[in-house]
């Protein structure tokens, strides 16, 4: 008889792995990517490729530098960060911006904290925030969909002066200027449904996030109460991308269901405030980053109630 293996129980496993989860999220983002390429042309693909390559290369380098196995770069998390970063960028942005964004995302957003699982902030959003502050003009110059007569330099629907020109159906299909992965709501929802169906994400964060934005923009969106255009606010900007794919990032969101709902509401309140009163037209990125910082304290106050809990 061969040698017997001894290992601690359990001796069977669910088969779900971190790598599979990361790749599933990558796949779920593919429809939105295809939509981005279709709407804005091949420049979208360039941005995605550059951003992903920059993230992978930086991650591999940093892993080597930290004496870790560089093969861990294949766990999918760096590719996911690169993809999400690209989705947050205007499609015609100069080629060096996604490259710098990728480097910043991986170094300042992830590896500086100790790599996978250790980061406080969503790495892709750290990259995006950095780029937004450093090159605000590039980051807010948008390209129109391919079939529009005037190709470049349009405003996103969220900019206040143009907000009335768009029909809900245009917003839903992505027929407007914006960041390359955020415009096509239907494509994002296809990916989101896949993630919900495979139980990779739950509805707690996205639903509480979106409903909060809806309620606040409905209540305070225009002069007088309850006159705001909440459907417009939900469909435009990066809300759907942010709520389903960025705020739900495991590492940077709370552990328990209760915590997730508080986190989602917090993101929603901040997004709505920034959109309605802030200097930027869009607030999803900063609101998620801000709530990321609040996660440890949310976790502390939202422990689960154990079986047989006795009030003292």
């Amino acid at each position: 008889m061969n040698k017997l293996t001894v290992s601690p129980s359990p001796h069977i496993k669910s088969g779900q792995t971190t790598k599979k989860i990361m790749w599933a999220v990558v796949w779920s983002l593919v429809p939105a990517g295809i939509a981005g390429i279709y709407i804005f042309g091949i420049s979208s693909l360039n941005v995605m490729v550059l951003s992903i390559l920059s993230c992978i290369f930086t991650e591999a380098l940093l892993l080597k530098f930290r004496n870790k196995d560089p093969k861990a770069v294949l766990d999918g998390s760096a590719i996911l960060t690169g993809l999400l970063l690209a989705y947050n960028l205007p499609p015609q942005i100069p080629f060096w911006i996604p490259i710098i964004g990728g480097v910043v995302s991986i170094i300042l957003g992830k590896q500086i904290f100790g790599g996978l699982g250790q980061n406080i902030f969503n790495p892709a959003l750290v990259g995006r925030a950095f780029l937004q502050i450093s090159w605000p003009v590039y980051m807010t110059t948008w390209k129109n969909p391919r079939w529009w007569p005037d190709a470049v330099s349009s405003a996103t629907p969220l900019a206040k002066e143009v907000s009335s020109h768009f029909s809900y159906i245009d917003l839903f299909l992505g027929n407007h200027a914006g960041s390359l992965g955020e415009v096509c709501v239907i494509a994002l929802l296809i990916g989101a449904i896949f993630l919900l169906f495979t139980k990779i994400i739950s509805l707690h964060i996205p639903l509480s996030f979106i409903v909060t934005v809806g309620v606040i923009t409905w209540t305070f969106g225009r002069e007088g109460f309850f006159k705001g255009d909440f459907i417009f606010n939900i469909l435009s900007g990066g809300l759907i991308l942010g709520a389903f794919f960025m705020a739900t990032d495991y590492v940077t969101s709370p552990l328990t269901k209760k915590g997730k709902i508080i986190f989602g509401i917090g993101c929603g309140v901040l997004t709505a405030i920034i959109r309605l009163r802030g200097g930027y037209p869009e607030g999803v990125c900063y609101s998620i980053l801000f709530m990321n910082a609040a996660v440890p304290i949310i976790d502390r106050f939202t422990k689960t109630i154990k079986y047989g809990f006795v009030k003292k």
Partner: protein
Amino acid sequence: MVSLNFIHPPDFKNITRNKKIEIIPIPKKVILPLSQHAGAPSEPVVNAGDSVKTGSLIAQAKGFISSNLHSSISGKVIAIEESSHPVIGSSRAIIIESDGQDIKTYLDSVPAKDILGLSKEEIMTLIKEAGIVGLGGAAFPLSVKLSPPPAKKINSLIINGAECEPFLTCDHRLMLEKPKEIILGAQLIAKVLGVKDITIGIEENKLNAIESLNSASFRLKAEELKVKVVRLKTRYPQGGEKQLIKTLLNKEVPSGGLPLDIGIVVNNAQTVFAVYEAVYLRKPLYERVITISGSFSNIAKNILVRIGTPIKDVLDYCGLSPKLDIYKIVMGGPMTGVAQCNLNAPIIKGTSGILVMDKRCKLEGEELECIRCSRCIEACPAGLMPCMIGLSAKKEKFDIASSYDPFDCIECGSCSFVCPSNIPLVQLIKLAKLKIKRQ
């Protein structure tokens, strides 16, 4: 009140669910560890060289939480020495060599007296003498479980037929083949406890067992005794004592307490069968039904085996060829069982099965960092946060670990089962418990 979390591992019970219980031949030698129950080891009452019969008392309970031990074959005691133990590695054991006769002691003492006329105390004495422990796995001495402090009134008796561990079908087969005996055993326990309600919980992957117990309880109706067989969802760990109480009676055992504290006693179906045998046949606990299963369906069986039979003898009987590509041998179920390194270790009272696994059961993947996916939290049937306990223990921050209630963990292994980063959470929690206790 919390709602319980469960997981749904594949149950693998088709391999053996239709296989009748086979009686395997008496082994040439048995190894009977003095510690095969929760509590203090038993004290030998025989010496090397003594002749014993099947069912002779060879070691007696020492202290309140302890249990008697009986010879499982007739023959000669050849040694009382340190020997391999399937769970704790090694322990003092009484080793008996068979004379091939299997002469039983208890046959002469079969009661003439009417069983229903036995008093509570007489039944209790018989249970205690028979060395019955919980046969679900924890091996807690039954006599202790049935002696609540006088202040505590017991209202319900639950018979645990959930058998939620994948692969195992020994309780299932017993409920199918010996339903009458199980009901009679349950009635005896109800009498000892002064209980009017018996609830039998069985998972719905054993519908025929539900049917067989239902009809047996109908036929054996006892006055003033209500027996209810409840169909449970198939999920893990449905058969955990506390989880079963919550599902059946919607009550929670207070943290740190026992089912006794809320007036409930839970017994495994096979334990109840042992009570029947002890009282009706005066037969001590020296054999039990176990399931042999795993990757090789040709050796899979449900067998009635003498306690103390070396694992190797059992597997030989089942036809395990040494040529097979065996990767791992586990005693117990796949979720909580113990991987064996020495096949000379014996079957003990708490053994519910032996699983022989091949390379396909190898758990791939190295341990990665926690990505805070919260799957362990959503799987924990005790409502804990396993990742917080586990990761604090890993960083040796045991004060933080203790603030996440590791002592409420029932060590079911669900957290490790679901963890996508292959973190051995249940081991880390066990470590945390150990370290905190020592502090």
